C-alpha cells in the first residue's frame, strides 16, 4: 500500500469513510461525509442501559454513516459479516492480498493499541486496515494522530466481540464510485431533512425534544443517591466528548460541514450564518460539560436546576440553527 496516507480525524466512522473514499479516488472531507450522511442527532433512551447508565447519543445509530453515504452518493459498497471467526480472518487477508484497503467494525476493549484507560466495551468502533506485516496488521485508526499496528489475535478478538452492536467481523470497502458527483443537490436535500427531523420529530426521545426530556430527568436526580446522580451526569458528558465525537458531541464538525457547504454555494450567507450559530452551540455544549465536571469534583450540593436549564437553553439555540437552515434556498 505505497500511496495510502493516514489522516487524523475527529470521529471513527466518518473518518474511515473519508480516508477510504479518498484512497479510492473521491476527495471528500470528514465533515462533508458527516453532513451528507445525515447522522447528527440527539438521543436519550432512559430504558436502554449501557454500563448501568441510560443511553445518550449525539448521533444516529452506528453504521448509519456507511449506509447513508452509500445511498446518498450512489456509491456501491460491499459490507461483509461472518459467522465464523476463521472465515472472517481469511477474508481480510484475501482482500488485503488484492491490494484493497478495508474498513472494519470492532470493539474498543480488545484493541491492544488503545490506552488501557479508555478500553471500554463499546462494539461500534471503526478502523481502516491497509496492510499486514508478518502477524501484525497495519491500521489507520482515524481517531489516532498516527497510524498504528495491531496483533492478529487482538484484532480478531475485537472484530468478533459479542454483545450489543456486535460487529460480527464486519468488513467494508467500495466497489464502484461515480466519476462525477454533484454535491449541491445532496447537500440541500439533507440539510432540510435533518432540520425538520431535529425540530419536529414526533418522538420525545430524539432531536431537540430528547434534550428537553433529558433536562427533566436531570431535575429528577435530586431524589436519587448522589453517587448515582454524579455517574448519570458524567455519562452524558462522556458520550459527548469521549472517543471520537469531534468535540461537543459532533456540533463543531457539523459547523465545519456547513462552512464547506456555504463555499460550494458561492459563499452562501444563510449557510455561513448557520455554521457560526452551530459553532456557538458547540461552545455551549462544552460549557455544559465543564459545569457538570465541576459538579462531579465538588463536594457541594449539585445545582440540578442550573444544569437542566443549560440543556434547555442549548435546545433553544440549536433550534435557531435548524430554523436558519430551513431558510436556505439552494
Amino acid at each position, binding site marked *: 500500500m505505497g500511496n495510502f496516507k493516514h489522516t*487524523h480525524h475527529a470521529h471513527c466512522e466518518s473518518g474511515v469513510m473519508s480516508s477510504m473514499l479518498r484512497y479510492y479516488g473521491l476527495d471528500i472531507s470528514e465533515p462533508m461525509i458527516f453532513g451528507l450522511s445525515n447522522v447528527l442527532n440527539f438521543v436519550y433512551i432512559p430504558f436502554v442501559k449501557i454500563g448501568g447508565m441510560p443511553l445518550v447519543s449525539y448521533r444516529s445509530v452506528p453504521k448509519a454513516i456507511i449506509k447513508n453515504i452509500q445511498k446518498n452518493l450512489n456509491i456501491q459498497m460491499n459490507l461483509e459479516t461472518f459467522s465464523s471467526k476463521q472465515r472472517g480472518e481469511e477474508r481480510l487477508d484475501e482482500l488485503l492480498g488484492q491490494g484493497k484497503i478495508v474498513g472494519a467494525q470492532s470493539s474498543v476493549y480488545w484493541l491492544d493499541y488503545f490506552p488501557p484507560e479508555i*478500553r471500554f466495551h463499546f462494539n461500534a468502533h471503526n478502523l481502516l486496515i491497509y496492510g499486514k506485516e508478518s502477524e501484525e496488521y497495519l491500521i489507520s485508526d482515524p481517531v*489516532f494522530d498516527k497510524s498504528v499496528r495491531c496483533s492478529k489475535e487482538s484484532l480478531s478478538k475485537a472484530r468478533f466481540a459479542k*454483545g450489543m452492536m456486535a460487529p460480527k467481523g464486519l468488513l467494508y470497502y467500495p466497489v464502484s464510485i461515480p466519476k462525477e458527483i454533484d454535491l449541491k443537490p445532496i447537500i440541500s436535500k439533507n440539510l432540510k431533512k435533518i432540520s425538520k427531523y431535529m425540530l419536529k420529530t414526533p418522538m420525545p426521545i430524539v432531536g431537540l425534544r430528547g434534550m428537553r426530556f433529558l433536562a427533566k430527568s436531570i431535575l429528577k436526580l435530586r431524589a436519587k443517591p448522589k453517587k448515582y446522580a454524579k455517574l448519570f451526569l*458524567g455519562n452524558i458528558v462522556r458520550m459527548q466528548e*469521549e472517543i471520537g465525537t469531534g468535540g*461537543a458531541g459532533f456540533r*463543531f464538525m457539523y459547523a465545519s460541514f456547513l462552512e464547506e457547504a456555504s463555499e460550494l454555494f458561492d459563499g452562501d450567507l444563510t449557510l455561513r450564518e448557520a455554521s457560526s450559530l452551530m459553532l456557538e452551540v458547540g461552545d455551549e455544549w462544552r460549557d455544559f460539560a465543564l459545569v457538570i465536571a465541576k459538579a462531579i469534583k465538588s463536594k457541594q450540593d449539585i445545582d440540578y436546576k442550573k444544569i437542566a436549564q443549560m440543556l434547555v437553553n442549548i435546545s433553544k439555540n440549536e433550534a435557531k440553527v435548524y430554523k436558519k437552515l430551513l431558510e436556505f434556498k439552494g
Partner: protein
Amino acid sequence: MDIKSVPQDNSSTYGEMKKAIYATSSDGKIKSIGSTGWDAEEIVTQQAIDDLEESRKEALKKVIAKERSPLYYYMYETRMDLSVLAQSTGFFKWTIKRDFNPKIFDKISEKRLLVYCEALGKSLEEIKKIPKDIDG
C-alpha cells in the same frame, strides 16, 4: 471555539494519543487540530474508571473470602457487568449468577467454561485460579 482555545491539558486518560477537534483558525476557517486532552473530559472518564475499579476491588474481596467464584472477579476485571457478560456468552443471566457460587463453579463443564474463557480472554487455567490480592 477558537483554535487557540482548544484545550491541551495532557489528560492521563488520553495515553499517548491526541484527539482531533474542529475549531476556528486565525483565517476564520474551521480546521481540525490535535488536542492532548481536556480536564473536564478527564474528570468524567476518570469517574467511570474509578467506578469500575471499585467494583473490581469489591469483587476481589468476595472471591478471596470464598463468597463468590473467580468468574465473578474476572467479569469485573474485564470491565464487564452481568448484562455484558450475558450478551458476550449468550448465557441467561440467572445461569451466570449460579456460576458465581464457588461450589457450583467448581463443577461446571469444560464446554461452558470455555465459553467464559473466550468472552473474558482467559485460559482454562487462569479462569479457575483465585486472583492474588495484588493491589486490591
